[in-house]
């Protein structure tokens, strides 16, 4: 039960400490939570269902653009826009997912198709004047108003993203114990066997896809509101997709807390390296590359694999 006490303490610290933290640390914590959240959203599809999406930027971007455009053009509060973005992203996810799963794309082929979809959306966004083309969109008039998802300080944003991350973890936990969760695991381990045992693989994968893309889109809206600026490269670019999966892989794909743990390790690593080597862009991402290679080589189950005491089990390939 030691683990639960530890978790409780960590949660208490996350809830109570931030008001007393200097702004710089608060910013880092917000990044940690955002990336942890995106990782958790990716994890549902990538970790549990074993479908490695390289294009979650598509849903992130749809979320960011939908809420921002609704707010700028029609004055719809981003809280509602967030849901609209989520629904739209889920619809797009179902479309992309149906196409790829229906035609039996698996493994790396699925990854490539998702990447292509995200890149297509990026190209469209760059070339569409109505969404600000490559200049992007700015949310002006930063009058703080809770209704409009615009706050005075960083603290409220922190609590919003903390709540979102906790919700994502809670959903993952529920998922793990649900029929859907078990089906996804079966599909991940051996799709043909799962189907033979009566699992509706297509339906289950689509459900995971919808949930994962819906959650990712909410993260996109949060990003837009927090930074008040979005452009096609930031939102639809490959780096968003990579960020999400990185947290989950490093922390432990297919575990409830993995993505958050990953974010707690990766974000400080990147912040520290950026602080240590100033004026040289790219050091942080370079380290991400190193961490990714090391984790896959030595901890194929991520950091969570350490705890379970199965750090590096030999895996025999099925030929």
């Amino acid at each position, binding site marked *: 039960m030691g683990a639960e006490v530890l978790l409780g303490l960590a949660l208490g610290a996350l809830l109570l400490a931030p008001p007393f933290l200097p702004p710089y640390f608060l910013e880092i914590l917000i990044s940690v939570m955002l990336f942890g959240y995106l990782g958790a959203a990716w994890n549902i599809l990538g970790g549990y269902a074993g479908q490695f999406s390289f294009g979650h930027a598509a849903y992130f971007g749809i979320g960011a653009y939908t809420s921002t455009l609704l707010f700028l053009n029609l004055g719809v509060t981003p809280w509602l826009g967030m849901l609209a973005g989520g629904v739209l992203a889920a619809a797009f996810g179902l479309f992309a997912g149906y*196409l790829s799963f229906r035609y039996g794309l698996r493994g790396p082929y699925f990854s490539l198709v998702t990447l292509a979809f995200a890149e297509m959306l990026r190209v469209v966004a760059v070339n569409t004047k109505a969404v600000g083309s490559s200049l992007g969109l700015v949310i002006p008039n930063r009058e703080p108003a809770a209704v409009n998802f615009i706050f005075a300080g960083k603290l409220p944003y922190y609590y919003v993203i903390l709540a979102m991350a906790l919700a994502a973890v809670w959903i993952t936990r529920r998922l793990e114990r649900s029929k859907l969760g078990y089906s996804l695991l079966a599909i991940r381990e051996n799709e043909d066997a799962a189907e033979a045992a009566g699992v509706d693989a297509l339906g289950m994968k689509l459900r995971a896809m919808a949930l994962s893309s819906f959650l990712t889109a909410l993260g996109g809206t949060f990003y837009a509101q927090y930074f008040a600026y979005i452009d096609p490269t930031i939102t639809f670019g490959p780096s968003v997709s990579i960020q999400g999966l990185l947290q989950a892989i490093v922390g432990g794909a297919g575990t409830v807390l993995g993505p958050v743990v990953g974010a707690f390790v990766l974000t400080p690593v990147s912040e520290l390296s950026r602080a240590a080597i100033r004026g040289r862009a790219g050091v942080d*991402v370079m380290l991400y*590359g190193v961490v*990714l290679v090391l984790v896959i080589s030595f901890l194929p189950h991520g950091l969570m694999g350490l705890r379970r005491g199965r750090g590096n089990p030999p895996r025999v390939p099925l030929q």
Partner: protein
Amino acid sequence: MYGLVACGLSLIFGVLRIINFAHGAVMMLGMYTTYWLFTLLKVDPYLSIVVTGPAFFVLGMVIQRTVIEPNRVAAEHNQLLLTLGLALFLENLALVLWQGDFRTVRPPYAGASFVLGEALVEVPRLVACGGAIVMALALFAFLRTTDVGKAIRALAEEPEGALLMGIDVGRIRAVAFGIGSGCVAVAGALVTPFFYVAPDVGESFNIMAFVVVVLGGMGNFVGALLGGFIVGLAESLGATLLPGSLKQLVVFALFVLVLLFRPAGLFGGGRGR
């Protein structure tokens, strides 16, 4: 041009069954090598191929031996991530070392061109195109006639059979990765006279190369070369029909369609897995 990049990628995929995300990054390094050789030592970009080719062959072998081979038994997607990590590392290493500035190599003949019928032909592009074809043919001949080449093809077709026939599969895999890397570095050298050099330059080639490889059929060189032509055509067609960078949309759409309906490639037999 995409053809040559894709040839290397196709080779690596065929033999190693790995989709190599680091391919573009290796090409970028090849381009930087050409750039530095030209800027510091005044080595002609085309001449520098003699250096970049073998150097990146060795680099590719080292990468395969140290990073990828130990993870042979890991799940397929983990190997994908491995090359992704490698790409992130190499690209950002370049960013750290040489900043994000666009650099160009301008040998005296960079602007040379002549008129052929109604078309304006730029000499460096023509050379790159010719170079790509020569390289592909050489590669083809190498795979057909030499022992190592035959071993590579055997490994691509039947890994276990190759192992049973006494082929040192680890060495052959390293050689294949080396050749793939060497090819893409040469491709990098060939394009530098008319293309900019920057840390993320490989990315755009990488995505195109995926498209080409998938079009031509994974592990199929002639297919890769033909795929290169198709992508080039689709891109220029898209450029004339659609405004701005929407031409890429055509290529991606093509990519998705081929992946969905003919994952084994236009010229491959039937469906992939």
